[in-house]
């Protein structure tokens, strides 16, 4: 059985607005705050009159473009991951940040990069994946599992405790590794400052695979929204659905953390934004939530560069400043 959701005019308009916000953020982030005084015109020049010896065009192509693309894709990943988690648990507070998936990935990545750790020597994607899995599993085991409909609060509180624990461990590891490494603190708060094309080529293939997996779970998630029992009686293999969703979430989160550190609260905000804009069907929500996440990270990155111009603020701090009031709002609004 497929549930069909009518697509209204308003939703199309909303999506269009969202795409406009994303595109404008993307274009602005390509040229603002540069030592080379770039202008919109330079981007136009690349498209119409490409000149490989022009320094401005080279700056945009080799420094700005990979960074902006990465920001968008990471935002897309996190937004999609948040939506999948909220869809599966039917818990409005579920997100990679609050379920300690991000901090788990960050913790094991940090341990992995140190020489004394046992896990050392793994590729960083694998380390992040293991960490994300550990963080998420810990939260679910300690918080009472998936079947606790009435205990969604306990799950969140357990998630926050595990999050605190893992973040503390990461900080300890970083200090022991190098007590002068302020840049590591930056990475811990999520930073896009040293992104190049190499990073982008690490990022996109895995992201694409995970997103395809995510799309394949949409039908199941639509039915899951009616309750697990109903989904089961409508022919959904709930266990298999959970496995696929979890795998997609872990992949999406861990690859993003590997590249840019934990950019917090994007996965919490984006799905709510998407639901406010575009209804209930996961087929539409998934891309819209992804686009919201992308727009969010893109604009946050833009902001993070313009606050103290030559220096860079980690983008994760900006998203935390936006995300935590939203978190407070969600907590207060929710029915107990």
């Amino acid at each position: 059985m497929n549930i069909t959701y009518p697509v209204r005019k308003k939703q199309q308009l909303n999506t269009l607005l969202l795409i406009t916000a994303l595109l404008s953020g993307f274009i602005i982030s390509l040229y603002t705050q540069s030592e080379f005084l770039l202008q919109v015109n330079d981007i136009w020049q690349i498209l119409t009159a490409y000149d490989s010896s022009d320094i401005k065009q080279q700056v945009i192509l080799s420094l700005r473009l990979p960074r902006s693309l990465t920001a968008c894709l990471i935002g897309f990943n996190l937004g999609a991951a948040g939506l999948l988690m909220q869809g599966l648990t039917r818990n409005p507070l579920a997100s990679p940040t609050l379920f300690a998936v991000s901090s788990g990935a960050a913790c094991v990545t940090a341990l992995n990069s140190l020489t004394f750790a046992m896990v050392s020597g793994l590729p960083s994607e694998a380390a992040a994946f293991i960490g994300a899995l550990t963080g998420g599993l810990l939260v679910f085991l300690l918080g009472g599992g998936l079947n606790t409909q009435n205990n969604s609060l306990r799950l969140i509180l357990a998630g926050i405790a595990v999050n605190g624990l893992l973040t503390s461990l990461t900080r300890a590891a970083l200090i022991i590794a190098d007590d002068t490494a302020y840049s590591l603190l930056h990475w811990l708060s999520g930073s896009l400052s040293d992104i190049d094309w190499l990073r982008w080529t690490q990022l996109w293939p895995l992201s694409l695979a995970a997103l395809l997996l995510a799309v394949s779970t949409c039908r199941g998630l639509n039915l899951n929204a009616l309750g697990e029992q109903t989904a089961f009686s409508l022919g959904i293999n709930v266990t298999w659905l959970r496995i696929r969703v979890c795998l997609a979430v872990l992949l999406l989160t861990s690859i993003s953390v590997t590249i840019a550190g934990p950019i917090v609260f994007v996965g919490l905000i984006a799905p709510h934004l998407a639901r406010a804009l575009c209804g209930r069907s996961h087929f539409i929500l998934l891309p819209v939530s992804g686009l919201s996440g992308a727009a969010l990270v893109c604009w946050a990155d833009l902001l993070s560069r313009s606050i103290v111009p030559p220096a860079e603020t980690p983008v994760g701090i900006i998203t935390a400043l936006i995300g935590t009031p939203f978190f407070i709002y969600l907590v207060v609004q929710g029915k107990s």
Partner: protein
Amino acid sequence: MSRYNRILAGGFSLLLFLSLISLFSGAQSLTVKTVISTLINGGDADFIINQYRLPRIFIAVLTGIGLAVSGVLTQGIIRNPLASPDLMGISGGAGLSACTVLLIRPDINISWLPPAALLGGFSAALFIWLLNRWHNPSPARLALAGIAVSAFLTSCINFLLVLHPVEVNSAMIWLTGSLWGRSWDYIWPLLPWLIILVPFSFYLAWSLDLCALGDETAGALGVNTQRLQIMALASAVALASVCVAVCGTISFVGLLAPHLARLLVGSRHKLILPAAALTGALLVLSADTLARNLAPPLELPAGVLTAVLGAPYFIFLLHRYKGW
């Protein structure tokens, strides 16, 4: 000697023992003879013993007492086992304002830090109180709201530290709580506050026991519950704030110490308060001693170690908590 006195005596001797360990151990290990002669006449190791390790021991004990007493009062008033000053955002508010003052005016006199922290702590408490008034959430949801508020305040601190980069150990004081570089200078601003507030809390403890019977019964027994609640909360906030002003947001001490004390001595506040104060002092002192000795000469923030201990305990509390 009753069981209670034995527990207190045991805790106290443990604290003394731990202080001695803390005095002897560190990046540079010293012999018993040197330590004793330095304590009496000074000498070569004067800086290490008298100016570095000794004040840290005192500050650890004092902040431990302050945070633990604050935790007992908070849990007693809100009657929520998940409540504590750091989980309610009070420590976060105090940390944010103390950190702001210090970053904007690095040369400010240290004795201004506690008042600044008080301002921040009371603002955060007021915010939580208003939230509680408007939405009247369930206890668990209130705890979550407090955590959300402290997450926001922590991200503000993070943001400030990025705008004004400081040395990593000082940053850690405000991010996780640490006793790094705390000398005698920091004891004097802290001490007067504690001398006033801790005995006051002991005085309130008697009425708090009546409050545990329920607001109506307490009223019938002659306790002005509303005034008591306000006074107890105010002194809880003040205690947590002045401690945070000195050594940052050392997390989970205010949550752990009252619970451990309750396990040891039962649920009467008159008995809990001294036991919790001892437990808190032990917790912070052992965290700081470990932090200095795990990887010398490097230092871990003490708050990292209390979090490693406190977070699992918090999860354990979640399992026992029945009021969802």
